[in-house]
């Protein structure tokens, strides 16, 4: 059985610790670990981001996505951590880790999960600028497309 860890957290995570933990949990059959770390990207005077979510539904959706990835990409382990609340530029938002016997499956699974997370899980980003302005991030069409391409794959 694959080892799965899902966390929605309002505090930062320890990437190195999470990677070590997943490798430990995945056992000797894991030959590769794929990862994505999302970070609040600066520019245009952006200062911070507030991430709102739908407690309960978020965990349910993340669990569904992770189990789908485990089956689809033969993962031996998977960790998804998504932060909520306020984050400054440069801070980590999201961590996706996958362990598999082979590198292709591990990396494909990371891509699948992060694509789906963008538009398929109930998170909403609000940007706060240095001049005091704040605005909700619009869903990007490219993200919808990235998520949709997995439906027919």
């Amino acid at each position, binding site marked *: 059985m694959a080892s799965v860890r899902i966390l929605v957290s309002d505090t930062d995570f320890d990437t190195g610790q999470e990677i070590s933990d997943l490798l430990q949990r995945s056992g000797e059959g894991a030959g590769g670990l794929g990862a994505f770390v999302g970070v609040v990207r600066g520019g245009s005077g952006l200062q911070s981001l507030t991430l709102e979510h739908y407690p309960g539904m978020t965990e349910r959706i993340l669990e569904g996505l992770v189990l789908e990835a485990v089956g689809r990409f033969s993962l031996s382990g998977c960790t998804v951590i998504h932060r909520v609340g306020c984050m400054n530029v440069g801070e980590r938002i999201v961590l996706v880790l996958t362990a598999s016997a082979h590198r292709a499956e591990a990396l494909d699974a990371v891509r699948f999960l992060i694509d789906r997370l*963008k*538009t398929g899980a109930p998170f909403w980003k609000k940007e706060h600028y240095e001049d005091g302005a704040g605005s*909700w991030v619009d869903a990007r069409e490219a993200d919808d497309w990235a998520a949709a391409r997995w439906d027919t794959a």
Partner: protein
Amino acid sequence: MVTVLYFAALRERLGRASDWIDLEKPLPAGDLLARLRAADPVVEAAFSVPGTIRVAVGQRLADEATIVNPGDEVAFFPPMTGG
């Protein structure tokens, strides 16, 4: 009774995060929203702003035809922007 939740820009425009509405028999989510809009001008105004609105029934993504049963949790929100 149905719990109705609002998130993100929709919650901000409404000035509140939830409503409770009496419901005796099952109703499509689209009809439920029409009742909410008709009952409260603040809801009507918040939903009049152009832009896609998504709905979840029982914490699952749904659409306007999805049946809402008494006791369900219904949520309205803009397209999701996670990751």
